[in-house]
């Protein structure tokens, strides 16, 4: 029992890490639910990786990494919109092109300067133990923004997930709310990369929401399950990393993915039992 609370006693940086992780978990639960429901996982992955050159550029210029991530995400969203609406390319091809292009650009920028020796690891894998009070404020504001927007747009988001044509016929412009949804995913990626990094934030977007989709009967419940699983992942991940010396961000995401497979295994076993029970003897 002591091992569960010890990491947070007298360690302000661990408490801040926990708070930051909880905010990331809630933010990712809301955005990730719609990513999973609408089959936007590839877009989420592309956005998570596509911010790399923006962050690298910002660090080169001495600007905040969050600002650079925002620029990178904006370029990604605009590029995806242009390519998918003005070319005959399928959306996954367009997204893939931008994804690898932005990632490659980021790597080139990083490799061209010796100034990134320590920063690149922080960008890719986060630095949850280095979260500052101002980072926390940023994440709290972003989480409130994401949750508030999802609440206001719940009806068009639900219709979009059900059938974009129904959204349109019901008077909610599908393309507009699709962009709003992408912006929510982008904001989530931008504020989460400091905690779990650009490579791992994608895991927090889809693993808890994926488990929530298996457990829930309603979208609201799916978000709640995703948030709960995300928060547990953050807590367990931090405790494990403290005691075992693992990288904190990666451990958090590993726990989230492991919890998904636990839920999946329990569901599969339950369904198998139900099928066996249904067979007449």
């Amino acid at each position, binding site marked *: 029992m002591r091992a569960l609370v010890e990491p947070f006693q007298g360690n302000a940086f661990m408490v801040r890490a926990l708070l930051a992780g909880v905010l990331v978990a809630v933010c990712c639960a809301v955005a990730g639910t719609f990513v*999973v*429901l*609408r*089959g936007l996982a590839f877009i989420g992955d592309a956005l998570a990786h596509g911010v790399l050159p923006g962050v690298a550029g910002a660090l080169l210029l001495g600007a905040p990494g969050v600002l650079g991530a925002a620029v990178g995400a904006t370029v990604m969203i605009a590029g995806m919109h242009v390519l998918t609406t003005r070319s005959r390319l399928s959306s996954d091809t367009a997204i893939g092109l931008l994804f690898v292009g932005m990632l490659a650009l980021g790597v080139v920028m990083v490799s061209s300067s010796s100034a990134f020796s320590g920063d690149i690891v922080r960008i890719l894998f986060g630095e949850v133990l280095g979260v500052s009070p101002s980072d926390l404020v940023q994440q709290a504001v972003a989480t409130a923004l994401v949750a508030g927007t999802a609440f*206001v*747009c719940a*009806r*068009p988001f*639900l*219709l979009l*997930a*059900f*059938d*974009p*044509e*129904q959204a*349109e*016929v*019901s*008077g*909610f412009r599908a393309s507009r709310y699709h962009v709003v949804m992408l912006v929510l995913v982008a904001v989530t990626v931008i504020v989460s990369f400091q905690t779990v990094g650009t490579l791992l934030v994608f895991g927090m977007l889809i693993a808890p929401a994926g488990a929530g*989709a298996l457990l*829930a*009967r*309603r*979208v609201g*419940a*799916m978000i709640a399950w995703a948030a709960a699983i995300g928060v547990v992942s953050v807590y367990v991940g931090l405790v494990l990393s403290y005691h075992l010396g693992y990288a904190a961000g990666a451990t958090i995401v590993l726990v989230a993915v492991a919890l998904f497979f636990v839920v999946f295994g329990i569901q599969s076993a339950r369904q198998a039992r139900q099928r066996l029970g249904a067979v007449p003897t």
Partner: protein
Amino acid sequence: MSAPLALRATAAAVGYEGRAVVEGIDVAIARGEALALVGTNGSGKSTFLKTVVGLLEPLAGTIEVLGSAPGRRPRQIAYLGQFHQSALVLPLRAADVVRMGRFSRHGLLGRIGRADEEAVVRAMARTDVTHLADAPLRSLSGGQQQRVYLAQVLAKEADVLVLDEPTAGLDAGSREHYLSIIDAERARGAAVVTATHDIGEAMRCEKTVLLAQRVVAAGRPADVLTPDHLLEAFGVALQAVQHLGHTDVLTAEAAHAHHPHGLPGHQHDHAGH
């Protein structure tokens, strides 16, 4: 001043990305009337419906719904499409799906009140899915899902119902029940526009348009769904025949063998077969 027509298409061409799938559609129906679009796969039925509800722009001519351009009256138009992409993924109960039919009345944040809930309950009762209200959508059979989607359309209490193959996946009993629901909707003054492969359903409408990537014929069903027109549209000799109060479509040989008395005015068409 008389009320605007429910639907009026004048020399309308519909299609995708500037390419017409079908051109020269001229048809109009008033409130309480029904229009059926009949034709082969890919003949333009669904494309026309998507244009009527505002998902596509007409490529030529004009289409007016309740006196306005398509898409301008979302509260008054209900649409049942063919595909619902997330039915197997979305964690929704059947009642949640039906409740979506009320969203257009309340926008982003308007309160869904008692009248809305009553409309949802009524619609589910009419399509006989009340007992499935709490069931996850993904656990329902194709026919049950189709009845839930139809309940969503009814819950909207719209003035124009636009239905793309609404009887797809329904068993014979459910199909008959669907036809009685449509009769009731028309009786309350709603116009119904349907794309269907069901000739019997088309025969119940005031107007029919027979499509084969062009307008083969348009007008009253008895004038449109003739053996000659059906042969022209489908490339097969077909005959609409009445049997026990229903209309069936059979090959000309089968129609002659089993139903020597086809539809009024059509007997001469198959007499020689």
